[in-house]
Structures are given as structure tokens and as C-alpha cells.
């Protein structure tokens, strides 16, 4: 298998034409061989990124911008493993990684949580058997607390300051223990958390209260692989799924100004309800009164075929990758 980690340039912003269209395709700047499947990755800082591998290894790559090369900066081998660290085939896939420079947290199929520091050779802390099932994703709740989701449908909060190897809180779905695959926290309001499940359901949780989600939104027809709040505009949420669709969830007040029968050419839109609301105090995500809330949901992919595995969003740009070995860049997200 020839897996590579690559850096692409999506072109300059200055290249926009008259209508703001983007000219030219993303082109490859540099790449480097990677052992095993890339399960997750995140930028650590401007130059370094952390990559999680299906072999259980976590690697920091550095991008040298002067000569456009990538090099492996640091590696933690067998960060995730089954049973015995020394057996050759004992590696377990590392399924999720999240960074808060210089701290790096990883989770894996072995149910283990690792806390690394970018400059230290050994793990700062390891919680063995943190979970009896696979941990699918991790994200920071606060600088000292993390959220994990697992394959028996539980959302757990871990306090890294405490030495005990138990989660400080466990949340779970009411009905069947459907595995949760992804988690993201609202950028500004830290008590709002979104998770995506194997049945394509989007769940919004308020972790200040209760152990069950605030709202369950029937979304995709298959596994939801990733969910992301827009980092600077958190009234927008993006989810992508195995069913090949990528949905844009819009709870901003602008959405309510449009007449309800408007059909955006080429996009399919669905509306949850119809009236306007003053949303300044309570976040639209937590409001579970359907008559008061309006949410616009758009599928951003016109001809869907294979799974959309991953997405990321920053400013007006959205990038996503599919199983058809294609990367798409949308630079006019809010036009």
C-alpha cells in the first residue's frame, strides 16, 4: 500500500475572477510516505501536523515552506496497541487526534487515551482501558478536559487534572446504543456539543444538564463521519457521511428572511419550520421548540456517489474528500 500525507495549495485568493469564481485546481506541493491508513490529522501549529495511523503510530510531520518538503519530526510508535506491545501485529488503529499546542491527545481502537506533549519522547499520561469499546473521536472541552465518543453510544468527559482513570461524566443516547463516530464542541459556548452516529443521526447535547441529548436530528442515511461547527460562525454546522452527502446546517437569522418556497438552483434545501426568532440569548442549537426555530439544511454535493470521509471548514472555505479519491474545495461558502 502506498499511503501518503500531502500538502496542497488551493491557489491564491487574488485569483478570483469577476464573479468571484475560483480559477485553477488545487495542486500538490509536497508529500511524504505514511505507514498505514491516515485515520485522523490536525495541525499542531503553522508548520507541524499530527497524523494518526491505522498501525497505532502517531507522527508529527513538519512542513518546510522554504523548500516545500515534508519530514517526519517525531513519532510515537505503538501509541495504540492490543494486549501486548511487543507482538508485531498487536497494533491498534489510532482513530482520533486533537491538538492544543503543545498538548496532543489521541484515542484508538484499543480504548486507550494518550496525552502527549510535542517535545517529549514519552507519553505524559496514558489511560489504559479507558473504555471497553473503541473510542472513535476526541475533542477538547476545556484546556484540561476532553470529550470522547465510543462505539456503544457514550459521550464521556475526562478531567486530565485528576489522576483517577475514570471519566468525570458519562452521557448516553436514550434508545439503542448506536455507536457515535464524531464529536465537536461549539467554539464559543462550551456547553454545546454535537455528535454524529452510525445511523447518521446528529445529536446536540447540553452538558450542563442531563445525561441525554437535547435534540436528535435525523440526518444522513449512513454513518456520519465528521461534524464541525464553523470556527468563526458557529451558527453553521457541517456534517459528512458514508452516504455521500455533505450537509450544511444553518441556524443563522438570515435564513429566516428568505421566503420558504425559494428553491436554490441546484441545491436541495429542507426547512424545519417557518417563523423568526430573536436568537441573541439562547443558542439556536439548544432551542428545542420547533415553532420558534428555523434551520436551513442544504446538501452541498450535487451528484453523490461514494462516501465523504472528511471535511474541514475555515472562513469562507470548505474542503472535503471522498472515497472516489477526489478532494473538493469550495471557496465561496456563504456567497
Amino acid at each position, binding site marked *: 500500500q502506498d499511503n501518503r500525507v500531502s500538502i496542497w495549495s488551493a491557489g491564491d485568493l487574488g485569483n478570483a475572477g469577476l464573479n468571484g469564481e475560483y480559477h485553477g485546481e488545487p495542486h500538490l506541493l509536497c508529500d511524504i510516505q505514511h505507514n498505514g491508513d491516515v485515520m485522523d490529522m490536525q495541525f499542531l501549529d503553522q508548520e507541524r501536523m499530527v497524523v494518526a495511523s491505522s498501525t497505532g503510530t502517531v507522527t508529527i510531520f513538519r512542513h518546510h515552506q522554504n523548500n516545500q518538503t515534508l519530514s517526519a519530526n517525531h513519532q510515537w510508535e505503538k501509541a495504540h496497541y492490543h494486549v501486548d506491545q511487543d507482538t508485531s501485529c498487536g497494533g491498534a488503529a489510532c*482513530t482520533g487526534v486533537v491538538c492544543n499546542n503543545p498538548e496532543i491527545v489521541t484515542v484508538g481502537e484499543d480504548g486507550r487515551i494518550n496525552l502527549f506533549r510535542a517535545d517529549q519522547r514519552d507519553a505524559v499520561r496514558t489511560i489504559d482501558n479507558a473504555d471497553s469499546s473503541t473510542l472513535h473521536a476526541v475533542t477538547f472541552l476545556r484546556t484540561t478536559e476532553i470529550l470522547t465518543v465510543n462505539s456503544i453510544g*457514550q459521550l464521556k468527559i475526562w478531567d486530565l487534572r485528576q489522576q483517577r482513570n475514570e471519566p468525570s461524566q458519562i452521557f448516553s443516547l436514550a434508545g439503542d446504543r448506536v455507536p457515535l463516530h464524531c464529536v465537536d464542541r461549539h467554539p464559543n459556548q462550551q456547553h454545546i456539543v454535537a455528535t454524529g452516529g452510525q445511523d447518521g443521526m446528529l445529536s446536540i447535547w447540553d452538558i450542563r444538564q442531563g445525561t441525554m441529548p437535547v435534540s436528535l436530528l435525523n440526518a444522513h442515511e449512513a454513518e456520519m463521519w465528521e461534524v464541525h461547527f464553523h470556527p468563526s460562525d458557529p451558527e453553521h454546522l457541517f456534517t459528512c457521511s458514508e452516504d455521500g452527502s455533505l450537509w450544511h446546517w444553518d441556524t443563522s437569522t438570515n435564513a429566516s428572511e428568505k421566503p420558504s418556497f425559494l428553491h436554490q438552483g441546484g441545491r436541495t434545501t429542507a426547512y424545519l419550520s417557518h417563523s423568526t426568532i430573536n436568537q441573541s440569548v439562547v443558542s439556536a442549537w439548544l432551542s428545542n421548540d420547533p415553532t420558534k426555530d428555523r434551520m436551513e439544511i442544504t446538501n452541498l454535493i450535487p451528484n453523490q456517489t461514494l462516501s465523504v470521509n472528511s471535511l474541514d471548514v475555515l472562513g469562507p472555505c470548505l474542503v472535503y474528500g471522498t*472515497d*472516489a479519491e477526489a478532494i473538493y474545495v469550495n471557496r465561496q461558502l456563504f456567497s
Partner: protein
Amino acid sequence: TDTVPPQVVPGVDPSARQLCFAWGPAEVLVCETLFDRAGGSRSRCRSRSPCLSRFWGEGGAGAASRALTGSVAGTGHGAPSSSRVFVVRRDQDIYIQTLRKLFNESHGIFMGLQRSEEELAGKSRKAQLVQVSKNYRSVIRACMEDMHEAAVSTRDPALQGQYSTQVSILSAMELIWNLCEILFVEAATAGPLLLRLLDWVRLHVCDVDSMVREVLSSESPSKHKLFWNVVDVFVLQGRMDEARHLLSKEASANPTSMNMYKILDDLMKKMPVPSTGNTQTLTELELKWQHWHEECQRYLQDGTFASNPHMESICKILLGDEDAILEKKELMTTWYHFLVTRLLYSHPTVKPVELRFYAQSSMDLFLGGESSPEPLDMILMAAFEFEMHQVIKECSIVLSNWWFVAHLTDLLDHCKLLQSHNLYFGSNMREFLLLEYASGLFSHHSLWQLGVDYFDHCPEYGRVYLELHIERIPLSTEQKALKVLRICEQRQMHEQVRSICKIMAMKALRNNRLGSALSWSIRAKDAAFATLISDRFLKDYCERGCFSDLDLIDNLGPSMLLSDRLTFLGKYREFHRLYGEKRFPEAARLLLTLMTAHIAPCSFWMTLLTDALPLLEQKEVIFSAEQTYELMRCLEDLTAGNPDKQKFQDDDVETTKVEMLRLALARNLARVIVKEGTVEGS
């Protein structure tokens, strides 16, 4: 159809050694045995596909370079001999990095075609199909460019050779496809047919491009030594405007030939060609053309161009003089260029059915017995003869990968051009080729996902093939397993779902990931496995005296109902929790229910009864009389049912336990009778 001739694995000598082979999911292992061949019987290794895939441009050497060689010293029989193991793999091409774009993009086009509306009839449907064909071709061209880039930028000469070969093969594929598009998909009629063929030739005969560029970019083109060659090229390809433009340069440089030039220019300008619109009928065109032809004839016979041999030869070409055209063989480079030029200047209103005769004679005249036709020539000839099946068959033989024939045949099938040419094992040609192509994809660790969609669109055998292939995909990560499962679930392949979930659950169990194992059995609704997992938990508890993975057992939720054993596990844990919270009456009730409702397995009753002991020994009476009688009954059931069970007789601990229980139960009964008999407050 036996479209692939038998192949022998290179490097193997079947006449010297007996061979054995074993099938793998995507490969065949061929191994030389120690045994010499006895007698001169025919080689058993001459088996047909999928024994070997031809490596493009390298004859049969490809597989040997990929074979695993390992020496095994012989045992016993005399001199030690080394045996080799060959890994023979089909479809090497799917591992070529630069072709992946071809496979992925064409998959998208294929899916679009399958989903496209069949209700569109006539012209709009045809236009749609032509667009699909053009899309396929543009993907081939894009891939060609990538391959060319790779060839130019690589420093490894072997790789460079490989890439260059592939560029030429892709180019040939596009050539054939383009012709098929013109003749079959678009089914161009007389008139437009010639225009399409002209475009086709202009697009694909590019050997002369550099010469053209050179002349055009020089300071005074008419002085260039290749000037007349370029003019001839333009005339041969019917590019009249460009030819006239160049000639005007010559005329201005050479005023003496101004008269000749004017006449020639005029002839070229007036030449009637089929129009793209419907502005003239064929008969009109023929009439005009006849007049024009006669006019050219007159000028030639008058000796107008006698003083300039170049112009005279051009006039002869305009008249369709075969010898004159043949003189420019090097400028045309191929017989099909010659064919189109001939048609342009002698039969511009050629009908599709007439093509075959002109094609055959063109090839004969052009090759002139010096060289024999190559496979590409035969394929094109078959196309001109409208022998679609022949085209597909020849392409299957020559190309080492099913991509081309599978997609082309599918397109032709959508054009309703292939009769259901039933092959002896039942499916038609389109399905056969798609099955072969998709099967090839399945041996790739990542392209198999494309193969799934192809199987979906093979009505007869697609599902069976999919069922067989999908179980053999290596499931290295959970995410991959989930993708495979989703595919199976969407197609109601329940057997495969169960089997995959079992595999993943067993793996999880071996790695002591009990929660994962449970998660997989819930997905498959596999009660038996859930029971297995629960037994594992219970075993752990009995051995260690405490539960592992409490986060799982405490949070089972409705999945508890999947299996009785699992329900018991959940309830049992609940009992422990109640006990820990000192809610003794509830705990007692639960414990009793577990036994009386037969939720607990018989093997566990002893443990449960032992758990009841501390409750019986409490200061406060917990079990009511009823409950105590029940407990006693349970104990008697347990001991009475197996009087000769060794466990009870040999094990002192067990007998002691039973005695203690009996004592405790009796004492509790006594106390509770007294308590219940006492009137409160007296």
C-alpha cells in the same frame, strides 16, 4: 468466449517439474514441486485466464518480475533442489498509480449513465449518450496528460519507458473510442460522417505537428524547406483555410506564380464540403461537387499548374488521384488518414455502409504488401466494417485490462446496439465484461469500492459475485469494516453482515475489547454472540470477584434485551449496585426474580444463592416468608437435580456452602415467621 489465449507463467518449466497451485482471493500461488515429470504428458499449467496478465509493452516478462522467489532446499530425494513459489496476479494495471484517476472518474461517468433517464427518446437520448462518450474520452485524455507529465518528470529510465508505453496505449484507446463514437454512438450519416472523420484524423495524427509549428513560426515560411510539406499536410487533412493562408505567403513572395496561385486558391475556396446544418441535401452536394471536380479536371488538363510541380500535385490531390495522395505517405503516416483523405476528395458523401470497402482497399494500398497490419489496424478495420463484436473481441485480446472493453460495451449496450449475444454460461457480453473488470478491481485494497457499483448493475450474476468478493476484503480497521457492512446492509446481504460482524466481534474478544465485541453483536443482532460475551463477563466476575468494564454493563440500555444472558448480566450488576447502595429489600427482590423467572443460567444459581447469604445474615429481616420458601425451593432444585454431580460431592467448599445456606435459610424463616406473626405495637 475464449477471448484470452492460454498463457504460461514465465520462469516456470512445466516440462521439468510438476507444479501445484493454490487459489487465493486475488492471486494464484504456483509452486514447483520436488517431483519430476514422468513421461511426456502435456503440461498442466496451460490454464487460461486469470493465470497471467500481460504487462503492457513488456511481453510476458511482467509477472516474473513480480513473482516471489524463495528457495526451499529439497528433502529426501537425492540432490537438493530449490523450489520457487510464484505469485501470479491478474490485473497488474490497477496498481499503476496514474491510472487510478481513470478508474475513479470513469466510475462516476458509468454511474451517471446507469442512472440517466431512459425515457428520453430519439435525438435527445442520442445527444446524451454522445456526451457520455465524450466524457469518457476526456478522462482518457486527462490521464494521458498526467502520464505524460510523469514520464517527463521522472528520472528513472525504466519508469520513463513504462509511462511512455502507457501514454501510447491510452492514445490508441482514445483513437479507437473516438471512432466508435462516430460510427456507433453518434451513428453519423453520410455527409456529417466525413466531417467527423476529418476531425478524428486531425486530432489523432500528430506526428506532423512539430513540423507544422516549425514552419509557421519561422520568419519567412515560404522559404522554409518544409513549406510545401506543411501545405500538403493541410490539404490532406482538408484544412483548406490554413492551406490557402500559407499559399498566399508563397504567392506574395513569388509574383510570377500569382496567376496559378489565384486559380488554385479559388478552387480550394469553392470546394463543396458537407455542411453541419441541414442547409443542403446530399443530392445537392453531390451535384455541386461533381461540377467542381470537373472544373479542377479542366485546369489540370489545360496544364495550368504544369510549371509548378507542387501546385500540380495539390491539384491532383484535389481530384482524388490515389497515386498523388499515396506519394505523400510519410505526411499521412497511417492508412486511416489515407482513407479519410481519399474519401474527402473522391467520395465526400460516403455512406456508413460503404466505409468497409474503402477501408479495406485503403489499408491494402497504403501498406502495399511491405508491412502487415498491426492489432490496432485490425481493430480499426473491424470498426469500419461495423463489426462491433469483433472490435470488442480484438480489444480484449490486445489490452491487458478490462477497463476499455467493459465501459465501451456498456455504452454500446445503452445505445441498444448489441443484440443479446448470449454466452454459453448465460450472461450477455456486457455483463461478462463488467464482471471481469469489477472482479479485477476487488483485488485492490482500495478500488474495490468502485467494483461494488459495477456489480450492482449486472443483473444476472452481479449479486453473487459481490457476495463472494465482499467477504474477502481484508478488514484492517474498524472503519473499513463499517464501510463493508454498510454496503452489505444496503443490499440486504444478511449472511455477509452476520459473518463480518462475527469476525470483528471475535477479533475484539481476543483483544479483550468486550465493549467493541458487544457493539458488533448488537449491529448484527447476534444473540448467540451476545450470550458468549456475557458468559465471558460472568466468568471474569467469578474469577476475580468484581466486574470489569463497568461503564459498559451499567449502560447497556435496551440492548440488554438482545440475549437472555445479557439481560441477566445487566440485572445482576444492578443487584450489586442496589446492594452497594444498601437498598436491601429491592436487591433481595431482584435476586429472587433472577432465579424464579429463570433469567439466570442454572450454572450461576449457586453464586446467586451465595450472594443471598449476606442478605440473610443481616440484623434486619429482609426476605419475607414467601421469599424464603422460594429460596429454599431453588436450593433444593439445585442440589436435588444433580445428586451425583461430582462438583457437590468432591468439593468441600461447595458442600459447606450448601450447609451454610440451609442454615441461614432456616434461621431466616424462623425469624420472619415470628416477625410476620407479631402484631405491631403490642
